[in-house]
Structure formats: structure tokens, C-alpha cells
């Protein structure tokens, strides 16, 4: 039992730390590497819960998460970074500097603990106690999404948000049904593919993926 709780807390801690690292680092290639690590931590959460609950189906989901989040999506992101003029680029000029961003993430984590009190109280268990971590990662992802200017960084923010939501889904330990899980994964994958293609097109027509150049449409 203690081994289960410790390993679950370790995996959730890894999830939160990688989220902070993604907010902290500016080099896009480092962000993508951290993102792969986070995918592994997410798969570990699912695997630990599967082992604890003797749930082979959740074990299969964990394997799927590992393939999708730790291998396929980072690979897609790296391809998006690919051969353009900003290959190996840095993020660059975020709207909010790194120190302020880290403080914001700390504040968001506290906020996550505050708002998810009803959730942890709903069904007290080691997994439910970790739900605020999932919410904190989701909020950090939303924060990255709105404060970064590179297309690839925004994409990373979107995926961070999605990792947080998936972790929350695992930690509530309520089965959503295989069809919904498959559909959600497929939609996320397709959305990322679509965004990757659009980022490529943006590079073709704008010469860069700096979203500051997106000034054609406004009122």
C-alpha cells in the first residue's frame, strides 16, 4: 500500500515538475524533450493505478498513452520545429518573462488546490489527493498557451493542458468508457496534426511562425 502511494506521488510530482520546467525553459528543443518526459510520467500514473486496481484495460491505456504522449506527439512537435529558419530556436520573447511566469505557475498551483477541494473530498483516496496536480498542470498549460508567441510553443501549451486533463481523468478513477477514451485520444492527435500542418503553412506564407506577425485580422 505505501509503495503504491509513494510511487503515485512520485509520478504526480514528476508531472508537476516537468510542467514547471516547460514554463521555465526557453529553448524549444528542451521543451520538447521535457514534454516527452512528462508523457512518460503520465503513462506511469496510469500504469500505477492499473497495477493497484488489477485493471488490465487501464494497463493497455497506459501503454497507449506512453506511445502517444512520450513518442508520437514529441516527434510531431520536433518535425514542426524541423527545418525552418527557427530550427533549434528559442522562445524568444514571451509576453511575460520567465521569473514572472514561474511565480504565476506557483499561484496557479495554489489556485488549483483551492478550487479542487470538493473533488478531493468527494471520494478520499491517495489518487483523489493528487487531483490538484492535474488541475495545476492544466492551468499552467492554459497560461503557456496565452503568453507564448511561437506557434510551436503554443502547441506545447495546448499539449500541456491536455496532459493535465488526462492526468485528472486518471486520478478521478472513474471509467469513461473505451469509446470515449479512444475518441478523445484520436481528436487530440488529429488536432495536433492539423496545427502542425497549419504551422508549416504559416511558415510558408509568413516566413516565420512568430505569431506577432498575425496582424492581418483585427477590428
Amino acid at each position, binding site marked *: 500500500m505505501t509503495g503504491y502511494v509513494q510511487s503515485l506521488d512520485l509520478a504526480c510530482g514528476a508531472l508537476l515538475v516537468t510542467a514547471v520546467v516547460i514554463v521555465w525553459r526557453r529553448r524549444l528543443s528542451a521543451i520538447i524533450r521535457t514534454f516527452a518526459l512528462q508523457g512518460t510520467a503520465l503513462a506511469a500514473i496510469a500504469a500505477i493505478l492499473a497495477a493497484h486496481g488489477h485493471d488490465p484495460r487501464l494497463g493497455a491505456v497506459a501503454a497507449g498513452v506512453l506511445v502517444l504522449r512520450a513518442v508520437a506527439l514529441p516527434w510531431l512537435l520536433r518535425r514542426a520545429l524541423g527545418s525552418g529558419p527557427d530550427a533549434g530556436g528559442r522562445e524568444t520573447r514571451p509576453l511575460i518573462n520567465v521569473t514572472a511566469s514561474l511565480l504565476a505557475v506557483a499561484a496557479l498551483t495554489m489556485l488549483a488546490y483551492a478550487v479542487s477541494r470538493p473533488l478531493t473530498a468527494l471520494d478520499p483516496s491517495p489518487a483523489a489527493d493528487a487531483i490538484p496536480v492535474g488541475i495545476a498542470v*492544466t492551468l499552467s498549460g492554459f497560461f503557456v498557451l496565452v503568453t507564448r508567441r511561437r506557434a510551436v510553443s503554443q502547441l506545447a501549451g495546448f499539449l500541456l493542458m491536455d496532459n493535465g486533463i488526462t492526468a485528472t481523468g486518471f486520478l478521478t478513477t472513474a471509467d469513461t468508457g473505451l469509446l470515449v477514451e479512444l475518441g478523445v485520444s484520436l481528436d487530440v492527435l488529429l488536432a495536433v496534426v492539423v496545427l502542425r500542418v497549419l504551422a508549416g503553412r504559416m511558415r510558408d506564407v509568413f516566413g516565420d511562425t512568430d505569431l506577432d506577425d498575425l496582424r492581418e485580422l483585427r477590428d
Partner: protein
Amino acid sequence: MVTLLMAAPVLVPVCVAICYLLAGWRPLTAWLAPVSAALTLASALALAAVLPGSRAALDGLIRADRLTEFMLIVIGSVGLLATAATPAWLRGEIAAGRATTRTAARHSVLVQLFLAAMAAAVLAASLGVTWVAIEATTVATAFLVGQRRTRAAVEAAWKYVVICSAGIALALLGLLLLNAAAAHAGAGTGLDWARLAAAATRLNPAVTRIAVALLIVGFGTKAGLAPLHAWLPDAHGQAPAPVSALMSGVLLSVAFCAILRVTAIADLVLGTGFTRALLAVLGLGSLLVAASLLIRQRDYKRMLAYSSIEHMGVMALGAAAGGPLALAAVLLHMLGHGLAKGSLFVSAGRMLQATGTSRIDGVRGLASRLPLLAACTGAGVLALAGFPPFSLFASEIGIIRAGFATGLGGVTAAALILMIVITAALLAHTSRMLLGTDAAAGPAAGGGNGSSAGGAGASDVTAGLAPVVIALAACAVLGLYAGPLAGLLHSAAHTLTRTP
């Protein structure tokens, strides 16, 4: 047989999409798309006629109740309008060199998948499948928005996918929390709409409150409601005209239908106060955004997009008022807005082809040059502004009366003032485009090239407008006499309020 009728709105468009994938876009296959939409409409009408109550099929995967049937009628009728106008529009684009038959084939495949995803979203028996289908509409339409591959189109597509995916991700979080609450209640309901509603009293209120707020804001993104509406004017402005018609006329309503169902469950758990406050804030915010940005609008497609935000805001206020009468008015408003806005976007697409500009000040004296197009646009704008005999008049009156009757008097009065401002702005912009003399704009339209393209398009422009005339006529007839649809509207509203 009923199972087949229920599955048809999803299966037929998927089959037609495969046909386009294999056969490409030809004069013959061009008419497959309207046939597919007509079949959707026919199966919706048949379901409404033969099916008295709610019925599940395909192992409980899909369910058709009265609300589903009504939403399928909306999808089918606006889909028929948009796809019937597509062949003429695509021919115009190909003639102008802005598209090839390959672009046309890809356009048709994606539009069919888009229609199938929307039908799946309203047919789904569970909230989870509805979420998957609504996110699938984002994926299907992303490349339709960016079809022209110009700077503006790619930018609009990027914003559209990022904002909608982030918003709908919030809804996913809400969905997971609601699922946790349902699992804790121990009713074994999963995310099935009907079973969630039946077990609603056992859901944990504190968790449900967080979940419902996330779901309403998340689906509200896709419905174009205020805080996360920023994608809408860009996407509607840049998408090809028939796609704008579908997005504005149906997609927003399909997302709003999910909000209505979430609200129905939330009201059983939390009482009506919570969703009423939330929806009233979102609705009033949308009206405020629309009014402030419509006054100085310079682009007529964006003008129509902001008008969509306004109408979604009005529907949100109707949903905030709640009750069978207000909800019936909201549903009628969905259909009327879909027909009127769909007609206007199709007309705007033809106007863009005829004049070569989407700027309001680039179009002058349309009434003297292209009288039929001008008449359609004028009638459509009058319908949007809520003038009788169009059905939007009846539904707006219904929503406003319900608002005053349920103690939302202050909010409704503010909304009424904003609606008057919006109407004035719409009429001012439109009259400048339709009336006046052509002489001033003629030379400014871009010399020989522009005017010859306009001249060549003139006869073609008129040819593609038959669906628009029929849709506007239907919208006017609905305002005077709803016929058997009135019964469907009221029983659909009753399925939401659970008072059969």
C-alpha cells in the same frame, strides 16, 4: 427501420464523402452533396413523424428524442441550403482561378465529414460521444477555413483551431469531473444524457457546479459566446461562403444544444439559479461584444459573423430564462437564425465573387446592378434584425417576454437596448451597400478587370440564388405559421424541462 433512419444522418454524408474522395468533383457528383443533405432532412422529418418518444439504437450508442429530431431538421435544412448553393459558388471560384477541381473535391469531402460530425453530436446518447463529435467538427473544418491559403486565411485557421481546441479542452475537464461525480453517486450512469438526468439528485452539488461551469464555458467557445468568441469573426470571415453558412447556421447551434442539455441536468442538481446567472452573463457579454464591434465594422462577412455572436447571446438569454416557452422560442430562433444567416452568407459569397471585395465601402448600389442578390441580402438582414414576418420576430418576442417574466428584467432591458443598437448598425451598413448609385463605385471597383469579372458573374450570380430565395421564404412562413413544427418545438422544449 427506425435504426436506419437514425443512423442515416451520419452514414449518408460519410458515404458521400467517400464518393467524392474516389470520383472527385465533376458536374455530376457536384449534386451529391445537396442530395445527402436532403436525405438527412428527410430522415429527420420521418423520425419526427413516426417516433413518439425517445428511442435508443445501436446498443445505446445513439438516441433520438424530440430535441434530437429538431436539431437534425436544423442541420438538414441549413445543410441543404448551403450545399445546394455550393456547385454554383465553386464554379464561380474555379472560373476566377481561385480554386481547382481538386480543391473543390477536397472541399466537398470535408463538408460532408463536417455534416456527419454535427449529426453525430446531436444523435449521441452520451455526453462523451457528443464531446468527441464536436471536437471532430473543429478538425474537419480547420482546412476549410484555411482553404484559400492566403495569409489571412491561414491566420484565421490557426486561431480557430487553437482557441476552439483549448475551449473544448475545458469542456473535457468538466466532462471528466461530471463523470467522477456520477461514478461516486454509484448509479452506474456513465455519461449517458438521459441516465445522468434521471440520477441527477444523487450527484455531488459542489463537484457538479465546477463541472457545469467548465462545460458551459467550453461548449460556449464553440457556440461563439463571449469570453472565448475571438475565433468566430476571423473564421467566418475567411472561410468559403458555403462553409461560413454552415458554421454560423448550424455548428453554433449544435454546440448550443449541448449547452442546453448540460443546463437541463445542472438545474436538477443545483436549482436554476447557477446556470441562469452564468448564461445571463455570457449572453449579455456576447451582445456587448457584438454591439461594440458592429458599429464601426468595415467588412460585410465579419459584420455577419458579429451578428451571429449577437444571436447566440440572445439564445443564451433565452436559455437563462428557462422554462418550456422560453426554450421553445430558443429552438425556433436556432432554425430561423440558421436559415437567415445561411442565406446571407451564401449571398455574401456571391457578392464577393461579383464585386471582388469584402469591404462594405467597396460595394455600392447593388440594387441597381444585381437586383435579385440585393433583394436576398436586404430580406436576410431584415430577418436578422427581427422584423416580421420572419420567424426571428416571433422567437425574439418569446425570449424577451420570458426574460421579463422570470425576473431577469434588468438583463433583458439591457439586452433590448443592445439589440436595437445592433439592428441600427446592421441596417445602416446594409443600406449603404444596397442603395445609392453605382456611378461612384464603378470606376473605383478596380478598372477593366474588376468590372468585366463582375459582368461575367452577373447571370451566374442570379442562377445560384434559388436556394436562398426558398430558405428566406421558409423563414418567413415559419414566422406566420409553424404548423406541425410547433408541436415538435414544444415537445422538444419539454424534453429539456422534463415535464412531458
